[in-house]
């Protein structure tokens, strides 16, 4: 699919969602797989915009591209904000705590990584690149 470039503001989340949904439809993903990928992309892009751009007073863009091959759909997200590797973030440890004692936030990256089959991060040419990869079909005998 043609790539999409949006400004690094929260108003752009709707356009990103529409792009991701179109890609999941093109890939013929099952409903749950499609939802989880949309959620993963939304969480990662939200992080880039809020922590990468807004809270550092930087402006920038988010570059998104869907790449389809026979077995997988990849959504590639790039930005020019400070280096940040979501895969190094430890999983939240307090998921069983009562809500009174929870930290606010920190669940987005967890949901993103849980929601895809493979999550690849790299920093190259002054950009963060997050690749979110899902299989287009469940393998036979897979328990999902």
């Amino acid at each position, binding site marked *: 699919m043609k790539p999409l470039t949006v400004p690094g503001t*929260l*108003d752009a*989340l*709707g356009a990103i*969602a529409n792009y991701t949904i179109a890609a999941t439809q093109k890939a013929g993903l099952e409903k*749950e797989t499609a*939802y*989880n990928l*949309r*959620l993963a992309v*939304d*969480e990662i892009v*939200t992080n880039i*915009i*809020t922590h990468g751009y807004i809270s550092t007073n930087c402006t920038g863009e988010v570059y998104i591209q869907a790449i389809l091959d026979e077995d997988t759909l990849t959504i590639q997200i790039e930005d020019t904000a400070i280096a940040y590797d979501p895969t190094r973030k430890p999983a*939240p440890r307090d*998921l*069983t*705590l*009562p*809500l*009174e004692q*929870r930290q*606010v*936030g920190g*669940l*987005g990256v*967890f*949901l993103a990584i*849980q929601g895809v089959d493979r999550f690849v991060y790299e920093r190259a040419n002054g950009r963060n690149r997050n690749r979110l990869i899902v299989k287009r079909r469940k393998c036979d005998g897979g328990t999902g």
Partner: protein
Amino acid sequence: MNIQIKTNQSVTIAELVGDLDANTAAEVQQQILPLAKPGSKILLDMTQVQYMSSAGLRMLLSLYRRVNTAQSKLILVGLAEEIRKTLKMTGFLDFFTTCETIELGLRTIQ
């Protein structure tokens, strides 16, 4: 995101229509949190919310705390299957009362 707030038999029904993401959750929080007054009964109708990100979880966490402090009651109505899964996966689900429909919600909260 469209937010409609109405009252039915001393119960406040807050109906959300649209996606709950980082762009819309702040507005929802602004409008919904003040409904948690001492003794109030709130049905948060999410029947027409098909999508919720962690920004929605944060909003629900703030609402939960406000409801507890005010000793009011809250029921989440009409959760989509995927949203229920997100709540379950993050350990939120057990802390909320949920109902399928507004009718059931009204009966449960009275």
